[in-house]
């Protein structure tokens, strides 16, 4: 069971996490007649974490409430993310929540989504 900011907003449906690589910012400078390059390390910047999944709700109103609650968390505040395996990631910003399509009516209401976090070092 995953959590973000202490809330289990994604448990209505299955979801997956994909970790991106940690990214360092660097400046490379070359000089005439010299092999190689001067690399200035500006430090660790962060990494992206992608989440894909499906939200499910018994009514359209409840689905829109759920989506609104998730969008509220995209407020620039770093939070704690716990994935489906219990792995904890700290200093995580929810950057983007994007429905992959319309809210559909199947057995109930459902909506597939993509979500992107940014973890600070």
């Amino acid at each position, binding site marked *: 069971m995953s959590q973000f900011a202490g809330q289990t907003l994604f448990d209505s*449906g*299955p*979801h*997956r*996490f994909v970790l991106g690589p940690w990214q360092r910012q660097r400046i490379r400078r070359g000089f005439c007649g010299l092999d190689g390059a001067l690399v200035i390390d500006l430090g660790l910047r962060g990494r992206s974490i992608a989440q894909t*999944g*499906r939200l*499910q709700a018994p009514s359209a109103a409840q689905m829109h409430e759920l989506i609104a609650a998730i969008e509220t968390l995209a407020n620039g505040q770093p939070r704690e993310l716990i*994935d*489906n*395996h219990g792995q904890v990631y700290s200093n995580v910003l929810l950057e983007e929540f994007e429905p992959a399509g319309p809210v*559909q009516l*199947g*057995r*109930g209401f*459902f909506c*597939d989504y993509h979500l992107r976090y940014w973890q600070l070092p």
Partner: protein
Amino acid sequence: MSRYRAIADVVFAGAPLGLASSLRIRRRREPLPSCGDAQAFPSSIQVGPSTILVDLHLRDLPAAESLELGQVGELSFQVISCQDDSRRTVCLAGAVLVGIETLYQQDSPATAVLSFAAESPEGLTDPFTAGDQP
């Protein structure tokens, strides 16, 4: 067990279609599975929109060939029970003719297969109805 001796009164968009030999009605909603992390089986199976497809096999080729693809109307027919001659009426409102297939064979009756898909005017009413009559 339901066993029927005849298919009668096949009508599409007001036009009678004679010599029907069989009708296949397929009602289906495509499964939309979704898995979470490390799940071997989908933990969510949602379903797509309902589709109702009908294949009507008949030997009345002139009637079949007089129809036009895309034609819309009510498709209805009755089946007559072997046991007591009671009738079951099946009706498909908003049937759209999407296929006409004819087969001419040497020394055998020519046959036609008419394919229909059903639409619902406002997307909520089930176009399919069936009921028994004494």
